[in-house]
């Protein structure tokens, strides 16, 4: 029985703007076990990035606000902690890496300074020591010639290398949880593979759990142990990686899997899920996926489905009641 590292219960994050109130995260619950990778899949706007930012409590306020729920991490509810306590956790116990390595690193500081900053913020260590650790981290993320690279600026590095630097920066304090928000999306496919391999490797070495967010099912298949599928601010399905691929239950999940083009087989038209993601300001009553669902029943328009759990595989769909 694995231990739970992070447990999110009934999280609600709403955005208040001129156009109205958008429930970006509308009551979701999930957990991450120690040493495991949880993959979060969904289209743009489904709330996956917001989930990550909610855990880190970096939701831009205004216009966003975490309005309900709890996030249990190491015996504490993160939502009840003050900013000072959160700052100690960020970068040290929970780290995050982002999608755009080009713009996510500060252009006017050297790569070394930025890694060292994470170390100096979280521990009483001397600058010299921090520098050694930074060089070590650079070689851990397989950046060649770290002694030289440490004094370089982000614009002098390639996209793949910058992402490695981000990873080095995120892992240098040996966090318990690494959140990767579309970390490979902006990279070339070959580099993507390298970075995923690196993350997997480091995860087992440092015994870090990973929350990996992506819209790419191919990437999920390579990295996740457990998967949750999100749609319009809700989790619609949650299962192990094998179950999701072998036995997808929710029509949306099935649709997503159908959409992945099959390289081997020709003469097959690309599958498309009809319709568009609804605006969060005007969510339909009942199941949010109903307008696009091929298997929709008349009841789906009025009733919002509850979770149905079976052998560790849960799904939010009326079809399975």
């Amino acid at each position, binding site marked *: 029985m694995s231990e739970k590292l992070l447990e999110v219960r009934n999280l609600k994050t709403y955005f208040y703007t001129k156009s109205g109130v958008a429930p970006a995260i509308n009551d979701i619950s999930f957990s991450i076990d120690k040493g495991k990778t949880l993959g979060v899949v969904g289209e743009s706007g489904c709330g996956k990035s917001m989930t990550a930012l909610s855990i*880190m409590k*970096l939701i831009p306020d205004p216009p966003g606000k975490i309005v309900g729920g709890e996030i249990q991490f190491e015996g504490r509810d993160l939502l009840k902690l003050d900013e000072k306590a959160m*700052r*100690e*956790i*960020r*970068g*040290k116990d929970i*780290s*995050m890496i*982002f999608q*755009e390595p080009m*713009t*996510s*690193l*500060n*252009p*006017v*500081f050297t790569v070394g300074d930025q890694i060292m*900053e*994470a170390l100096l*913020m*979280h521990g009483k260590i001397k600058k010299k020591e921090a520098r050694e650790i930074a060089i070590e981290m650079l070689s851990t993320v397989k950046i060649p010639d770290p002694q030289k690279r440490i004094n370089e*600026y982000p*614009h002098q590095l390639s996209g793949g290398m910058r992402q490695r630097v*981000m990873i080095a*920066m995120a892992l240098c304090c040996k966090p318990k949880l690494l959140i990767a928000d579309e970390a490979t999306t902006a990279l070339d496919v070959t580099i993507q593979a390298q970075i995923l391999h690196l993350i997997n490797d480091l995860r087992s070495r440092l015994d870090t759990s990973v929350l990996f967010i992506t819209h790419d099912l191919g990437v999920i298949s390579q990295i996740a142990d457990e998967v949750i599928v999100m749609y319009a601010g809700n989790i619609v399905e949650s299962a192990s990686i094998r179950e999701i691929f072998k036995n997808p239950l929710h029509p949306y999940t099935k649709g997503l899997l159908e959409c992945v083009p099959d390289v081997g087989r020709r003469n097959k038209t690309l599958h498309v899920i009809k319709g568009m993601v609804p605006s969060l300001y005007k969510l339909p009553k009942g199941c949010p996926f109903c307008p696009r669902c091929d298997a929709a029943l008349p009841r789906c328009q009025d009733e919002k489905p509850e979770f149905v759990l079976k052998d560790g595989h849960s799904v939010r769909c009326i079809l399975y009641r």
Partner: protein
Amino acid sequence: MLSYLIKRFFQAVFAILAISVITFFLMNVIPGDPVSLMMEKRADPETIERIRHEMGTDLPLTTQYINMMKKAFSGDLGKSFFSGIPVSQLIGQKFQTTLKLALLAYLFALTVGILSGVFAALNRGKIGDSTVMIMAMFGISAPVFWIALILQIVFGLVFKCLPISGFSTPAHMILPMVTLGLANASSIARITRTSMLEVMKQDYIRTARAKGVYEKRVVFKHMLKNALLPIITISGTQLGGLLTGAIMTETVFGISGLGRLTVESIFRRDFPVIQGTVLFIAVVYVVVNLLVDLSYALVDPRISLSEVD
């Protein structure tokens, strides 16, 4: 970088030469032979001729110009018609005062301007933002000489707490410094605000917070250093305005500096002083602008000077 510097150097030399020619031309074209002005009605034609010959004003204009430039290169700018003191000495003395005033004013402008701009950006949309920005607009629109007079009235007449003329003690320096620096402070505040707002949206700020960096450091280290480039760019181009403002400030506060010297010498038709100060100001101005251009490369490691123009 080297080719850029060389190009700028030649542009600068050309401009300075052109300005010296223009000034020379202006002075010699106006009615009022300096010698006879000086002598007024006292001397007879022979003495006037003799003095003219001594001063070299009977030579053809181009020769006079070349002689003057030759002497200028060796540091001899002639003597003031008015006081007889060597021009270079006059400039040397007065420039020190003006330089002090200008530096103080610039430091004041940078400090007050950047802090206000950061404050306004962090409080965007709220009352702090509007207040700072309105005050900045007033600061840019009020004439320097008028600000000087208002400050004199308020602090010298009404509250009687600060000295209003002269430049001897630190207390004397406060009002002139504020007067000269206010317009620049206002414009720096506006630029800082805009620049900070741009930087605040950037991804790397989010990364810094995600690392657990505390907010004050995020603002003053991560944001400000990136926001500095446009601030320095534009505030650098305002340095020339400091000289202009110095004229007004020195006039109102009775400070014996280069600005006042320039204006007084023009009123008194003190040709050598005018020529000398104009030349000097042109050189200083050009050098300062060049230094400002060079400073860009220091602040932003991404820029190589060939891109700056």
